[in-house]
């Protein structure tokens, strides 16, 4: 029970730290609550953004996903990092110069329209809720998998902790806890990665191990992996079964989607200036890249190591594992590794002796010896079992548990801020009750955050029961790319873009992308019906262009925006020149 002790200790300590930060960083005004007083240091904001961005899926599942997909996994690696280049150069500094609190704020004021603001609120809420379901589920899984606490209670504990710092501290509390969570998370990810890299390639840096020779052999790690996989009847690691156009579109949809995600954009509202927003995006991507360049190395090492230690091993039952495995080793045989036995009860790895020979066969679909595959593994197992595979002490496992929890909670908190500000700020203050005082708004913001925590918990429980979490992630990125990115981009780079164009663009992107994904995920569509061979994950990129063109054509056919609005656009392009323009700024001056 040594391992459970360390897990409890690290999770407990990290939770105490988060609550402590929440009490220290209490928000005193709506400015604090929504954008942390516009006063976060760019480097710290970079860390917070990295934690905000890297979810339970990035931390636990991505390395395993890449391990199974090989080259096909590149779409996630490029897609979830390349978006920051777009964000840094096309959106973040300009939106910061615009100087409000939320993404719907920009859409509503720039397009002088309550309707446009409401459509943006709907997009932001939809994207955030689909995303948060996965996070709450991640918290529940981490609790139930490691600490033996029932899944539902795991979600409740996660909710209580997030409630504490999100409701009390708002964006300010969230920001500083995310900084702490980034540190926990990156340490927990890289330590086991370094050890597994040392074991397999002898190189300290996993990124260099990835392109090194296998330790003590004269063959490169990837060449060996390709050889091992083809011998067992799998496709080569460096190949993929996806078409080039699909790979292209999925990568692009993830990039533009990343740039259009409200919980990522608002992180850049928390710094002092447009200049700070630019450099902060650089820091954010640097911090993200540490994990994202380690993940493909971990994936490849883990796949190689998994086959090496498990394939053709003799299976041993639980009762006499210690003695029996020692006997087998003494006879020069290979027994099922201890970590496999440890994780078997969780269902993340399983073995079924189909040919009854007592040996564990891992085989691909084209196995030359015609044997069936008997071993299955979940994507998450590679990161979770890494410390044991690399024979690291029990406390490292505790650290990984705390890291997974940090990844899930930090992303959940960022999403909660978007949900609560969409309700309290965009719906209440800017649409329904315009004369509201700051104190009242802050109170409503807290209530909204509390409600959002509760709703997120329910979504987590509900979504898990229905089991559709993985299917809806395509929605979040596709919708962000097709509905939010075009209007924000045109709002900055094309002064002539008007209200009518924006509404048409958002609705076109929303309806087409939603319809397409719904048809293929839930409506019974089959892959041979794909438009130009593009899967639902990549369709957001195509419909983004459709939305962009529909918006431009509509804008050209209708009246140009007023001189005031065109002046506003000029102002946000030039740092330090922002002054009040139009109705939006009269209702709420930029800050």
């Amino acid at each position, binding site marked *: 029970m040594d391992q459970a002790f360390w897990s409890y200790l690290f999770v407990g300590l990290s939770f105490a730290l988060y609550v402590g930060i929440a009490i220290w960083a209490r928000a005193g005004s709506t400015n604090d609550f929504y954008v942390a007083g516009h006063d976060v240091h760019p480097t710290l904001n970079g860390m917070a953004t990295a934690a905000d961005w890297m979810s339970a899926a990035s931390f636990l599942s991505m390395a395993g996903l890449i391990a199974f997909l090989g080259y096909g996994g590149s779409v996630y690696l*490029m897609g979830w990092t390349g978006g920051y280049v777009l964000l840094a150069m096309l959106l973040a500094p300009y939106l910061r110069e615009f100087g409000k609190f939320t993404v719907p704020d920009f859409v509503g004021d720039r397009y002088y329209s309550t309707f446009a603001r409401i459509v943006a609120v709907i997009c932001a809420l939809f994207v955030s809720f689909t995303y948060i379901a996965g996070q709450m589920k991640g918290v529940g899984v981490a609790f139930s998998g490691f600490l033996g606490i029932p899944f539902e209670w795991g979600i409740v504990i996660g909710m209580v902790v997030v409630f504490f710092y999100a409701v009390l501290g708002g964006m300010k509390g969230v920001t500083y806890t995310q900084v702490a969570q980034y540190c926990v998370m990156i340490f927990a990810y890289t330590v086991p990665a370094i050890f597994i890299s040392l074991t397999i390639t002898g190189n300290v840096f996993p990124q260099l191990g*990835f*392109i090194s020779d296998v330790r003590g052999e004269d063959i490169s790690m990837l060449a060996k992996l390709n050889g091992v996989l083809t011998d067992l009847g799998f496709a080569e690691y460096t190949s993929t079964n996806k078409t080039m156009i699909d790979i292209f579109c999925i990568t692009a949809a993830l990039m533009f989607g990343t740039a259009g995600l409200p919980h990522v954009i608002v992180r850049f509202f928390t710094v002092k200036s447009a200049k700070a927003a630019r450099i902060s995006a650089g820091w954010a991507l640097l911090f993200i890249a540490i994990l994202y360049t380690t993940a493909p190395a971990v994936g490849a090492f883990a796949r190689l190591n998994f086959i090496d230690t498990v394939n053709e091993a003799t299976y041993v039952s639980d009762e006499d594992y210690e003695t029996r495995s020692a006997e087998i080793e003494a006879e020069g045989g290979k027994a099922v590794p201890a970590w496999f036995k440890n994780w078997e009860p969780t269902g993340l790895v399983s073995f079924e002796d189909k040919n009854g020979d007592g040996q564990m066969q891992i085989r691909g679909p084209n196995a030359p010896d015609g044997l069936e595959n008997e071993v299955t593994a979940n994507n998450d197992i590679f990161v979770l079992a890494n410390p044991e595979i690399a024979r690291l002490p029990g406390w490292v496992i505790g650290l990984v548990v705390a890291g997974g929890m940090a990844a899930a909670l930090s992303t959940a908190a960022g999403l909660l801020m978007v949900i609560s500000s969409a309700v309290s700020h965009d719906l209440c203050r800017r649409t329904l009750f315009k004369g509201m005082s700051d104190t009242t708004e802050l109170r409503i913001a807290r209530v909204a955050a509390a409600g959002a925590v509760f709703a997120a918990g329910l979504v987590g429980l509900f979504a898990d029961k229905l089991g559709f979490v993985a299917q809806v992630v395509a929605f979040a990125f596709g919708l962000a790319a097709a509905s939010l990115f075009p209007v924000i981009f045109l709002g900055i780079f094309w002064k002539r873009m008007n209200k009518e164009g924006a509404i048409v663009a958002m609705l076109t992107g929303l309806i087409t992308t939603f319809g397409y994904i719904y048809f293929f995920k839930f409506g019974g569509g089959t892959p041979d019906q794909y438009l130009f061979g593009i899967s639902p994950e990549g369709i957001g990129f195509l419909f983004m262009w459709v939305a962009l063109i529909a918006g431009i054509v509509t804008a050209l056919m209708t009246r140009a925006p007023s001189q005031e609005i065109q002046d506003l656009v000029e102002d946000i392009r030039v740092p330090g020149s922002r002054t009040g323009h139009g109705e939006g700024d009269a209702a709420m001056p930029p800050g």
Partner: protein
Amino acid sequence: MSDTEKPVAAGSRPDHSAYWRATLTLTLSLLAVWFVVSFGAGILLRDFLDQFSIGGAPLGFWFAQQGAIYVFVVLIFIYCIGMNRIARKHGIKG
């Protein structure tokens, strides 16, 4: 249509069109690199690049899983330096 066409009358807004043109030029050139290393090297030209290798990894594959990400990070920092330089040159304080 463009900012330069507006008459500069007394009390009118300052003309920042040169600053904006320089910003757009920098942005477009860096985005061209962004496209070439990811969609170019990692996807479209991958088969061609895979005949070369870097430490045993096919080059196109390496770009898709490592190289593009390194270039992305560098691009943003170059952008920051470039923007600061443009701001100084055009007397923009922010």
